[in-house]
C-alpha cells in the first residue's frame, strides 16, 4: 500500500499530530461487524431447488470481502496510514470537529421524524429549517421561522397541487 497517505512528519508545528488515527480502528471494527453479520444473516437463508447459486453465495462473498478489507484497514492504521478528510468550499479540516453542532442537527431531524405525521409537512418543515439554522449558529430566529414557513408552506402547495404528491397536512388539515 505505497499509495496510502503517510502521516506528515511536521503536520502541526505546535501540537504534533498523533501518528496513529485511533478512530480508524473504530471504523474497522464497525465494518468488520457489518461484514460478519452479513455472513451470519446469509447463513440462515434456505437454498431453493433448481437454483445452483442460491441467495447465500453473493452475501457470503460481500461479507467476506468487507471482513478482509476492514482487517487490512486496521493493519494499515497500525502502520501509520491516515485518511485524507474531504475538503470543500465551506470546509476547514484544520479545525477540530464541532460535535455539539452535529448533535443538535441530528436532534432537529429526529424531531422532524417524530412530529411530521402529526404536525404535517408545512409546520414540521418550518421547524426543521429554523431549528437547523439555529443549530448552525444563526441568531435571527424570527426571520428563520418566517423563511422556514414560506419554504414549507410553499413546498407543500408545490408538491400537493403542482406534482400531485399528497404530503400530510397534519394539524393544518382544512386550513391549507
Amino acid at each position, binding site marked *: 500500500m505505497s499509495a496510502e497517505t503517510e502521516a506528515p512528519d511536521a503536520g502541526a508545528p505546535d501540537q504534533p499530530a498523533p501518528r496513529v488515527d485511533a478512530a480508524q480502528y473504530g471504523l474497522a471494527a464497525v465494518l468488520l461487524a457489518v461484514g460478519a453479520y452479513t455472513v451470519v444473516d446469509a447463513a440462515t437463508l434456505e437454498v431453493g431447488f433448481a437454483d445452483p447459486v442460491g441467495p447465500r453465495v453473493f452475501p457470503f462473498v460481500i461479507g467476506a470481502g468487507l471482513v478482509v478489507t476492514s482487517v487490512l484497514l486496521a493493519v494499515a492504521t497500525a502502520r501509520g496510514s491516515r485518511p485524507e478528510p474531504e475538503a470543500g468550499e465551506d470546509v476547514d479540516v484544520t479545525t477540530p470537529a*464541532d460535535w455539539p453542532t452535529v448533535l443538535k442537527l441530528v436532534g432537529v431531524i429526529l424531531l422532524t421524524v417524530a412530529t411530521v405525521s402529526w404536525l404535517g409537512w408545512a409546520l414540521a418543515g418550518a421547524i426543521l429549517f429554523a431549528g437547523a439554522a439555529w443549530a448552525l449558529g444563526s441568531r435571527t430566529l424570527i426571520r428563520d421561522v418566517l423563511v422556514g414557513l414560506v419554504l414549507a408552506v410553499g413546498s407543500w402547495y408545490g408538491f400537493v397541487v403542482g406534482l400531485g404528491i399528497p404530503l400530510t397536512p397534519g394539524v393544518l388539515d382544512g386550513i391549507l
Partner: protein
Amino acid sequence: MENLGLLWDGLGAALTPMNLLYAAVGVLLGTFVGVLPGIGPAMAIALLLPVTFGLEPTQAFIMFAGLYYGGMYGGSTTSILLNTPGESASVMTALEGSLMARAGRGAQALATAAIGSFVAGTIGTLLVAMFAPALADVAVEIGAPSYFALMVLALVMTATVLGASPLRGLLSLFLGLTIGLVGLDLNTGQPRLTFGVTQLVDRLDIVVVAVGIFALGEALWVAAHLRRKPASVAPVGQPWMGRDDWRRSWKPWLRGTVYGFPFGALPAGGAELPTFLSYVTERSLAKRGVARRRADAKDEFGQGAIEGVAGPEAANNASAAGMLVPMLALGLPVTATASVMLSALQGYGIQPGPQLMTEHADMVWTLLASLLIGNLLLLVLNLPLAPLWARLLRIPRPQLYAGILFFACLGAYATNLDPFDIALLLVFGLLGMAMRRFGLPVLPLILGVILGPLMETKLREALTISGGDPAILWSEPLAIAIYAVLALVLLARPLLSRWRARTESQVVAEAHEAETVSEGAQR
C-alpha cells in the same frame, strides 16, 4: 444517418411549449442548486429528483437534462468565483478561473466556461447519438457472464483507480454492495439484512440513499468543520468575450472535448483526468507559442489564462456527455451523476441494462434531444443571469445548510410519505459524514448499491445455465478480454498514479508560486 433521423424525432417529441417550460425550469433549478457552495452536480440532481416524481417520464427526462447541465454549469461558476473548488472535476477550472476573476476578468471566465460547455456538450451529445445505438446493438448480444465481467470491471476500477487509497475504495465498494443486499432476495423471496423491519423488505429507496450520502452527509460534514470566515467572492459583471478571447478560446474548447468524451465513457474515467490533461496541454502549448515567438501567442498561465478555463471546462462537459454512452447503451453508470440519473430511471420502472436502448428507444432519443435543448437554454438563460447567480454565493451559511437539510428531508419524505424514510436518511447522512471524515470515496459505495443487485442477477443467471459450474464466468471471449484489461490496469495503476501525483503537485505548486508572486507585486 438513421440515428440523426431518430434524434430529429426525439426533438419533435421534446419541442412542445410545455416541455420547453420544463426544460427551462430544470436549467434554472439546476443552476440555482449547482451554484450553491458545497453542492456538486450529483448532489444537485439527487436533491431535485423528488421534483420529477409526479411527472410523466418524458417530461421528467427533459427536466433531468436541464438539471444535469444546469448543475454542472453552476458548479463551475462557483469554482471560478470562489477560490476553492467544490469537487475534483473543477479543480483545474478553479486554478486559472479564480485568478482571472481576481484580475477583474471574471466575466470573460464565466463566458468562456458557458460557451465552452455549450460547444462541448453539443458535440458530446451528438457523439452519444452516433455511438450509443451501435454499442447497444452489440450490447444486447452480450451474455450474462460478459455482462457480469463488465460490472466487475466498472466497480473494481472505480474503487481502486480513482482516489488516493485503493484500500478505502474497496471498503466503500463492499459497504455499498452490502447496502444493496438489503431487502427480499429476488429469486427466492427471502428477506436479507432487514432486521425484521417491514419498510426494509422492499429494498432501500435509492433516492434516500443518494440524498443521504451526498446531501445530508455533506451538510453534516460541513457543520462539523464550518469555515468561520466564508471564502471571499470575486465580483463579476455581465459575461462577455472580446475578439481576442474568442480567438484564444475556440481551440481549447475543441481539444478539451476530444479529451473529455472518451474518458467520460470509460469506467473510472470521469472528468478528473481529462480536465487535468487539458490544462497541462493548454499550458504547454501557450509556453511553446511564446517560445517560438508567434505573433499572437500569449502565456498568461499563473495570472489567469483564458485557455486554462476554456479547455478544462469543455473537457468536463464532454466527459459528462461521454458517460451517457455506457449508461444508455449498457445500463452501466460510471459516475456519481450517472448513477443518480439511472436510479431515477428505475423510479419509472425502467431497469438498467443492455436492453435499455432497444426497449425504451423513444425515451432515450427524447432524453438525448432534451440534452441538446437543455444545453442551448443553459447558454441563453445563464449568460444574462450570471450576476444574479454570483449573489447566491453570499447566502449566510447557517441558512444555506439549513435549506439543504430541509430539501433533503422533503425529498426523502416525498418518496413514500413515511417518516421512517427521514430516519433512514439520517442514518445514511451520518454514514456519509463518517465517510468524509475517514477519506472513504463516495462513488464506489453508490455504484455498489445500484449495481450490486444487478450483478447478483447476472451471476445467478449465468450459473443457472451452467448448472453451477463457475467456469462459465470466463467461457466467453469478451469476458476473458475484460478480465485481462482489468488485470492490466491493476498492474499499471501504481505507475500511473505516481506519474499523475508528481505532475499534478508540480502544476499546483507552480500555480501557487505564480499567485504569490503576482500578489506580492500588487502590494
